């Protein structure tokens, strides 16, 4: 028990979790926007847009996240000079958000597509028969129902994103949980079990409410037909 108290007093565990939450929230925002754009491209009547979105999803779904994160620093930043800030920490934070967003968008797109599959084809036909164009049918009828039909897979994507945010360490974000954990293990190998428990419990505490919320919402928002 003493070990826990010492660890929590010496290290800013809460601050580290806040960094992961921040990474997650920004990435959730950007990946949702990008994911919606991708899924609209995938169902659009223009075949070249469908192909581009399909290729994007296949590429990012199959790349390991660590490779994307390392590329953000060594490729996008070091070679291609993509920089968000002159402050190193800020710059790496936003590079990590970019990598996480690009990666997660592919999964958001797939989650939404599973939601679109729950919308009967007749809904789109009725919209077209009334003279609505693709954008109007998508934004008024298809996507609102698809969102409500994909709450559960979107929730799972969010949970995966929160856990994946620890890979930001690979993009040199040194203040987040997995970096802090490595540091703690290095300096306090005597209380290694406590260190594991702190981080394991931290994530469980964060993730269980997300799961409960998505279960609740997916029932509450389900489209009645």
């Amino acid at each position: 028990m003493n070990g826990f108290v010492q660890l929590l007093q010496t290290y800013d565990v809460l601050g580290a979790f806040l960094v992961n939450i921040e990474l997650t929230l920004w990435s959730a925002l950007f990946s949702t926007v990008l994911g919606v754009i991708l899924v609209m491209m995938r169902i659009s009547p223009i075949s070249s847009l469908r192909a581009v979105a399909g290729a994007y999803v296949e590429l990012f779904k199959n790349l390991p996240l660590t490779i994307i994160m390392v590329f953000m620093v060594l490729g996008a930043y070091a070679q291609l000079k993509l920089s968000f800030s002159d402050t190193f920490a800020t710059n790496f934070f936003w590079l990590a958000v970019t990598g996480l967003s690009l990666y997660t968008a592919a999964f958001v797109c797939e989650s939404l597509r599973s939601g679109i599959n729950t919308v009967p084809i007749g809904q789109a036909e009725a919209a077209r028969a009334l003279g609505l164009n693709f954008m109007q049918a998508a934004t008024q009828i298809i996507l609102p129902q698809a969102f409500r039909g994909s709450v559960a897979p979107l929730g799972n994507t969010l949970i995966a994103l929160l856990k994946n945010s620890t890979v930001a360490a690979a993009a040199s974000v040194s203040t987040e949980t997995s970096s802090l954990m490595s540091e703690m293990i290095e300096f306090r190998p005597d209380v290694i079990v406590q260190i594991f428990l702190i981080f394991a419990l931290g994530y469980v505490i964060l993730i269980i409410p997300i799961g409960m919320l998505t279960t609740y919402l997916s029932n509450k928002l389900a489209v009645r037909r």
Partner: protein
Amino acid sequence: MSDKKEEVRPTMPLVPGDEPGRPLVELTHVEKHFGDLHVLKDINLTVNKGEVLVVVGPSGSGKSTMCRTINRLETIDSGDIRIDGKPLPQEGKELASLRAEVGMVFQSFNLFANKTILDNVTLAPVKVRHMDKKEAERLAMDLLDRVGVATQANKMPSQLSGGQQQRVAIARALAMKPKVMLFDEPTSALDPEMVNEVLDVMVELAHEGMTMICVTHEMGFARKAADRIVFMADGQILEQNTPDEFFEHPQTDRAKDFLSKILTH
């Protein structure tokens, strides 16, 4: 193509007006395949303004497919379809505006599940016709009142019975002030006790002079409301006649067989 047009419709008036009898929907040599299946075989059909056409035939005869080609929910392989003299455009803006002129009622109602009854009716007038929201709501309430579901305006579609949903679907189509209404088996998914409430609305619409193409198995409705019966089997139009002639003196064996099967009980 352009000189052929003249031959096909020599009596077509040059100035579009409201005179009844003007051809509104014209299908010429329409062919369609689903893979190996030849679903529409050389369909030629003209529907004049104000006419009520009822399409009957055994299932799988291509009735619904033909109905759906008229607003291009199904594409065709060859042939020509014209609405009010204009050929059906390719997918895009023009097609959307043409679809706005052709009302469609589906077998499975297809009311927008995420919108209230009122919003279902006002959506297209507001988004497509750019009608003022208040004006669209007045129009919608008028139409919902006419089909007898005005009291349900603020409910969601799933809270209504099938018959009520289908009447809302008719009101939704009418809100676009269409030139022609397509009915694709509108009562086939209904419980028996709800069939008549929908047919009553359709009969009323027919008496008001709406141009209608109805695919249906309701022979009572066909007799009562149709100006002309089209009998289809195996993707072909086999007979076209007035209801009396068709039901009393069917010409082809297929039609006799079909009628004997449905009229015996």
